[in-house]
């Protein structure tokens, strides 16, 4: 049960980071934090049920997180080239 609480706390920290920070790199890190929290949950439930599915899922999630980070960084680099900043608050032309 404690593992679960730990996971939820980490997840919430990730969400808060995402909400509070405006630096894209930090936001990306917050998302990674959320994914890691999810991985802890997988491992915990895998142990509770006594099956290996959850642990396999964790491996797959690592791959997914890596891909996501790669694509995200590529987009951030692209944006940095366009505007010279990594602050998400500068991107608000499209609205209403």
């Amino acid at each position: 049960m404690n593992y679960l609480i730990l996971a939820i706390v980490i997840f919430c920290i990730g969400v808060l980071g995402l909400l509070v920070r405006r630096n894209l790199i930090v936001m990306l890190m917050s998302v990674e934090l959320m994914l890691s929290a999810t991985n802890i949950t997988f491992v915990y439930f895998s142990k509770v049920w006594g099956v290996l599915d959850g642990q396999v899922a964790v491996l797959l999630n690592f791959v997914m997180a890596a891909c996501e980070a790669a694509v995200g960084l590529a987009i951030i680099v692209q944006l940095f080239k366009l505007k010279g900043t990594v602050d998400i608050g500068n991107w608000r032309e499209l609205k209403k």
Partner: protein
Amino acid sequence: MPLIAVLGAAIIILLLISWWKRASGELLLIMAVAALCAVVMFSWNGLLSPFTVIDVGFPLMAAFDNLSYLSFIILAIASFLSLVASYNYVKERGQNFGAYIVLILFALFGGMIMSCGTNLIAIFIGLETLSLSAYALAGYNKDLASGEASIKYFVLGAAASAILLLGIAFYFGASGSFEISNIRLQVMNLQAEVTNKNIFLLSAALIITGFGFKTASVPFQWWAPDVYEGSPLPVTTFFATAVKAAAFVAFYRIVSSMIPVTGDTLMQAFYVIAVLTMTFGNVCAIYQDNVKRMLAYSSIAHAGYIMIAFVFMSRDMIAAKEAMLFYLLTYTVMTAGAFACLTMLKRKGVNHELTDISNLAALGKRSPWFAFAFSVFLLSLAGFPPTAGFFAKFYIFKSAIQNGFVNLAIIAVINSLISVYYYMRPVVVMYFGSDQLPRVSESTDEEFNYSTAGVIILCMILVLILGLFPNAVLSMIGM
């Protein structure tokens, strides 16, 4: 087989463009189209042949039933339409068409895995494949709007994925398996196990959030208008059609396994989501002068109509599936047609999209057939009686009433009445012009190009077929 065809084509084209730099766009396009045709063909075969369980010696994590095959067909049509419509678009902006095709094909592959997957992890991987390609596609134009669309989509999408993944983890925690129709889930006695019940409901809420994001339903729709507006037009088409269809089908599969457990709680949630979504989309669309953004809001509104099917799903699973698939098919065709019409608008020497409504002024006079086609798509989106869009709405509303959701149907009808206003506006501007709009100094021309015109004509034919033979198509879906 359809999956292999798409994956194979994607990999071959990827290798081809990295080794043979001068591979012509036409060749690649033909290859991709061939792959899509193969998908449709195999799916058609699969649809007609009796359902067999494919035994490959290990858990397949996927179901090949008529839901999968039909969604393959819808996805392939959507990808086909946006691919062909984008040929000119990408070419005249001097971009790399090969990479574009590869991204679309990978996204399609992800979408297909989503729609046939029966294992939550498989569905999640499909969704990520789709999303990652989509993020890249959104930023395919190297301008500010496109960049903004891409980063917004990415940040919000990544958060939504993490939430969805957490939901999957809790689902696993509650049932001990990733299979969406596992035995434990079916015999789970929620009254007895309070902890399990709460974990399960929590997972349901998280999964709804994740898919609510992908399907652009209120209150998770925020990204959609901005991303749709900023992305390149053919990519917007792809988002509005293929991405949405894949998300809805996967969502359907998951929810259909949850409903026996959760009962009416989910139904109430969907009720509220459906009402909010369609109302939000419609009232926001009224104010848009940018046709592309207007169509983005309209796409949210249509997601709301489809959500109605999720509401009465707890009463009649089959009717919900049929109504949803028919709606998705119709919506795909008419939206792709409307976007293709926008893609065709050009002005000499200008390379950005002309999506403001004032650009449509007097098109009814200069190119009547074009204006006619655009009007048909818009009227169909509004749901005017003899069009395909009418029957799509008709079946959803009808099933809602049959299952006792009369109020919901009335709200939906009021919503479609509101929507008539903004769908008619471009039509009025095209045919009658409007004094309130700022005059455009130069006239807009629709520049004839065969690929986009072909898409428009194909969409017209499909809209016509769906409008003329709705019963036939529906009985095919119900097979």
